[in-house]
């Protein structure tokens, strides 16, 4: 009986390798590229695809820590407001307070980190409150502070070199892509090769068991939410550089895109499952999809609908898969 179960599991694993969600994403990515290429004859060359990444990579920085947050089984919907607040503070400290741009950029990262830290502390100090309600209220507060600071004004006039962040190249490759690749490797190693990463998975699967086995649950949770804040600061840098100016309503709706990317990347919203490689693939899937629809002049409202549906469907698919998987296993053991 036992042997049979193990055999069944082994067979399942072999099959699992080819039926991994990541291969599915690769397939979708190829299909999207084929469609994009058929829409525009200028699309399918290396340079144009590389350039296309510049249009969507700014929010990709938040996807990495968000994967951690969702693996924990939590969610952070305040990230877009954090982007807005840190971007606005940076602009004001350069333009109105006369600080040097380098310092203003550091302040931007510090503000982002602080926002994340506040989220983390609130969530771990008040365990009765879910991450949903805490980040929901800080989402309003951070965006509200951005409005208090800048009201309905825009703030721009950054030094010339600042636009390099969003638009510059290093040896023919966009600077933003290189920075993203570095962060992706760091976060990938952190999640898959360190004890920190293993603990994150453990907490996502069973937080009580993790606490009893000596994992410093609160500390890890605070660190992860702080990381999400820091990376929102990084996004603020690149986004502001790309746009050349900032407003309090900047990055509205980014949380939807980011969560959609993470979830489409195969990270389960019930926690404990998911890999960085999947989320990176899904960044490119959604990014290039948007780019392609943009080529076709699809209106922005249609994009809203598509991304929303994509998010819901992406969450629905693994739920269905788990059901059939269980049925499958049960069937096998019975036989």
């Amino acid at each position, binding site marked *: 009986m036992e042997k049979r179960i193990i055999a069944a599991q082994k067979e399942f694993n072999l099959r699992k390798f080819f039926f991994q969600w990541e291969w599915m994403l690769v397939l979708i990515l190829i299909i999207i590229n084929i469609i994009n290429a058929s829409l525009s004859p200028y699309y399918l060359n290396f340079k144009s695809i590389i350039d296309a990444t510049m249009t969507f990579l700014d929010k990709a920085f938040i996807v990495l820590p968000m994967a951690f947050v969702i693996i924990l089984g939590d*969610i952070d*919907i305040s990230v877009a407001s954090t982007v807005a607040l840190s971007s606005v503070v940076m602009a004001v400290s350069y333009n109105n307070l006369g600080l040097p741009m380098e310092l203003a950029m550091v302040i931007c990262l510090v503000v982002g980190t602080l926002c994340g830290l506040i989220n983390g502390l*609130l969530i771990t100090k*008040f365990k*009765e*409150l*879910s991450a*949903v*309600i*805490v980040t*929901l*209220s*800080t*989402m*309003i*507060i*951070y*965006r*509200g*502070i951005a*409005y*208090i600071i800048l*009201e*309905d004004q825009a703030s721009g006039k950054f030094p010339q070199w600042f636009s390099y962040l969003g638009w510059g190249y290093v040896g023919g490759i966009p600077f933003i892509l290189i920075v993203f690749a570095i962060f992706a490797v760091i976060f990938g190693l952190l999640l898959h090769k360190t004890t920190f990463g293993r603990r994150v998975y453990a907490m996502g699967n069973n937080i009580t068991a993790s606490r009893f086995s000596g994992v410093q649950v609160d500390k890890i949770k605070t660190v992860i939410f702080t990381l999400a804040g820091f990376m929102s600061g990084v996004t603020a840098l690149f986004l502001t550089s790309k746009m050349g100016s900032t407003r309090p309503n900047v990055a509205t*709706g980014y*949380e*939807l895109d980011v*969560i*959609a990317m993470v*979830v489409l990347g195969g990270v389960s*919203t*019930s926690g404990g499952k998911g890999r960085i490689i999947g989320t990176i693939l899904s960044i490119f899937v959604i990014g290039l999809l948007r780019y392609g629809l943009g080529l076709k002049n699809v*209106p922005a*409202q*249609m*994009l*809203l*609908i598509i*991304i*929303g*549906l994509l*998010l*819901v469907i992406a*969450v*629905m698919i693994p*739920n*269905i898969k788990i059901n059939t998987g269980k049925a499958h296993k049960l069937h096998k053991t019975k036989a």
Partner: protein
Amino acid sequence: MSEIVLEKKLKVTGISKFRELGLLVFIILLSVLVQLRNPNFLTLENINDMIKNTAILSILTVGMMLVIVTRGIDLSIGSTLALSGMVSALTVSANMNLHPLLAILLGTVIGTACGCIVGFLVSKARILPIIATLGMMNVYRGLTFMISGGKWVSAHQMPASFKAIATSSILGINVLIFIAILIYIIFYYFINHTRTGRQIYAVGSNPEAATISGINTVKVLWMVYTIMGALAGLAGVLWVSKFASAQGDTAMGYEMDVIAACVLGGVNIAGGSGKISGIILGSLLLGILNNALPLINVSPFWQEAIQGVIILVAVIVNALVKRNVDRKNLMRRKI
């Protein structure tokens, strides 16, 4: 044994009474303070205006309370409201002779359909409420823009009979207020005195136990989100009639006001508890704040942040009160 239970019950009702009394005192204090700053606040005209403005909010709050009681949250209601408002506005502008009651019915049906879809995703497909409603929020918002082609339906396109919904009165009470009172009476009966109503609370306080005791949790969840959608649809028609314009971005972010009113009214975000009397006070307090802040010359840019802080403080206070009650109960058990 029964004495202890009775005592505990007394203690708990005592605390919740105390909370509502505290809220009431706070509302009175706030009104007095605002009155001292601006004598126009407590005039009959302004109070009437304020209650009229709060009516739509309070209709939505009932539905949101039911959703939060089942441990869920619904971020899609602002979009549902806009969609059903837009559809009914477009319909009445095309058929000027349509009876206003039919317009209300149409909006409610659209809202019910929207809520039904969300309910399906949450109950049947078992998607986290926050993800499902975040996705559908964007889908419905996108649809609103699509069907209107990005254009407004303005006052002169609407028949007078439709605009009169919000201005006429029944039995000397403004229709908006009348509908709100009617809904509160119906739902007071529904959640306190019907089996299905009590099942909502059972599902919220312990889903597993509810399932084991034979409650169809899927059905209850589905119903709750459908009710929420129906109320949002109704509110959509009232909103459009009141402001005499339907826009693509109607009620954007309004879900936050509704959640705030619930949380202020003592609805526990962890599910299982929430009272009609509490949310009346909650919506009233939020209505007073929205009305009073401009009257005492608080810049509109401060309002968002203030609202966020209020939500956060309210949930933290709720958590602390609950902690206190739990500790007291625990101590009594020891003796």
